[in-house]
């Protein structure tokens, strides 16, 4: 077990808490950098998807996990980013510029969608964002001159001032760089006053307000950053999938995204990536598992949705802290072996909630 003796404030401020952190995250990054050399092409494509969904997940995590605002329309931001990127890339814009435009447009749309969040919360906000998701899906289908409507739209190859990411490996590196930058930016935000203001709003609005936190400004900011990251993810998604149609950005995608961060573990950046890993590998595992199931079950429609549902219910019931929470417990178990107790992570119940100010 490791004991940390803090002698400088920087030890709390730095992202890496100790040398071990630097070692393990360095190894992970090295492994990701050399991934194209040893991963088969199919699995490299899946890893690229994990990175893309990870970026979107980090954005949604900031909104839902850290600010406490749940969005059921996040696929719409993904769609705004994807279509903006596709339209601009078709017009010959280089990738950095079109990505910036896609990000900015998503953020602007996020600011507008954030408006109801200033008045409603919880289930009502979920319904408002759900409605927004339907509106965007409808716009994508009907605005045929720009989006190509339900016939779809072909995405050109990613082009950075003449350099083309036309192989899976080169595109994978683009995604890796974007994912690392996005994650670092969010981590930086979270360790600064802005991130703390988000957490304050999540835990007690009334108290946050009396600390001088401008609720409307920070809620809007959270929505904008979250939407911007979804837009970045959408732009990458467009190049990865190569063909866009409106139905990719519907309610099912939104639910997938929410599912991803809940299963990954709300309130942790690790959770966003673990959730993305789960979201991408689960269908593969189900496909592999089909060979061992009796024919009637394996061929049944909705098998995947069924398994997803079961897994989600299991997580909500048995592991509300998600995959990352499970990992924390496992690590603590090894840290404290043999002194781990079953109730160590149980939350103390608070009986003060009934007459709290709203």
């Amino acid at each position: 077990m490791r004991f940390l003796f803090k002698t400088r404030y920087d030890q709390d401020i730095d992202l890496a808490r100790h040398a071990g952190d630097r070692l393990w995250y360095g190894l992970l990054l090295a492994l990701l950098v050399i991934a194209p050399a040893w991963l088969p092409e199919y699995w490299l494509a899946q890893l690229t998807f994990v990175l893309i969904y990870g970026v979107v997940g980090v954005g949604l995590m900031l909104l839902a996990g850290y600010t406490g605002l749940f969005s059921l329309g996040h696929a719409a931001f993904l769609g705004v980013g994807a279509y903006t990127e596709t339209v601009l890339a078709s017009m010959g814009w280089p990738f950095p510029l079109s990505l910036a435009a896609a990000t900015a447009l998503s953020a602007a749309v996020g600011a507008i969608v954030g408006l109801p969040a200033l008045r409603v919360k919880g289930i009502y906000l979920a319904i408002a964002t759900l409605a927004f998701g339907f509106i965007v899906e409808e716009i994508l289908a009907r605005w045929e001159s720009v989006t190509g409507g339900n016939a779809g739209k072909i995405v050109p190859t990613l082009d950075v001032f003449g350099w083309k990411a036309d192989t899976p490996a080169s595109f994978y590196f683009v995604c890796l760089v974007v994912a690392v930058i996005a994650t670092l930016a969010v981590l930086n935000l979270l360790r600064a006053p802005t991130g703390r203001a988000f957490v304050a709003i999540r835990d007690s609005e009334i108290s946050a307000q009396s600390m001088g936190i401008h609720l409307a400004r920070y809620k809007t900011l959270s929505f904008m950053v979250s939407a911007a990251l979804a837009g970045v993810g959408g732009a990458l998604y467009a190049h990865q999938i190569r063909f866009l149609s409106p139905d990719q950005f519907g309610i099912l995608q939104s639910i997938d995204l929410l599912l991803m961060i809940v299963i990954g573990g709300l309130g942790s950046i690790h959770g966003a990536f673990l959730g993305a890993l789960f979201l991408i590998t689960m269908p593969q595992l189900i496909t592999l598992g089909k060979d061992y199931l009796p024919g009637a079950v394996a061929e049944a429609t909705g098998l995947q949705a069924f398994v997803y549902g079961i897994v989600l219910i299991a997580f909500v019931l048995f592991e509300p802290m998600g995959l990352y929470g499970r990992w924390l417990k496992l690590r603590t178990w090894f840290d404290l072996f043999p002194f781990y107790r079953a109730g160590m992570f149980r939350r103390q119940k608070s009986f003060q909630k009934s007459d709290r100010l709203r």
Partner: protein
Amino acid sequence: MSDLLLSARDLTVRFGGVLAVNGVSFDVPRGGVFTLIGPNGAGKTTVFNLISRIYTPTSGTIEFDGVRIDRSPPHRIADLGIARTFQNIELFEHATVLQNLLIGRHMHRRSGFWSELVFAPDVRRAERETRRKVEEVIDFLDLQHYRDTMVAGLPYGVRKVVELARALCMEPRLLLLDEPSSGLNVEETGDMAFWIEDIRDDLGITVLMVEHDMSLVSKVSDRVLAMNQGEVLAVGTPAQVQNDPSVVEAYLGTADDATSLRRVA
């Protein structure tokens, strides 16, 4: 600079048909501890919520250090130098004690959004400074032991102190304490009395509090205001107010009430 820090004039709040606060006027002098007392439902907490702008007065004015605050937005109150605690503890539960106190320094932040995204050197400098200030408060209130503990796992008495610490991190000029001793045992209440005196004497912060525990009130208060049913009964030193006939009547009833009760029995 006048020696009045806060003055309320003819404050009235109506919730539908209920007159929660009715024409209340009072002045809080700079320095010292000013206490609001009164039976349950007297309107003490409502007055607090008016000052911290959770409620808007139906009529009347509140001036803080010469500035009208009864119409300013709630988050501006902190910037003016008013901090508060809550009757039922409103801490950020899923954060550590240290993080809670850091949020208390929010109004003193200097970094902008873009420099925070890249965590520029000036953000790091500001963060170090923030932590140094927070450590001063931790030392002041003896919270070293709990620095990295999650609030959700802390006992009630400690949470009360953490909430006080968070308010002090704001470096306010006026500190509003809503029942600082509620839910505390005798020893913890004693500690709280010491801290309130220290806050007044060492930090020079004016304290305005609502309190039921009369021993704490008479120990630390410089002035006391008694309220009942939304109106002011008496203002003065703790002893004066405690002996005021109208205050005695509000708490215990009159001699006539007692005799009439006896007759019924």
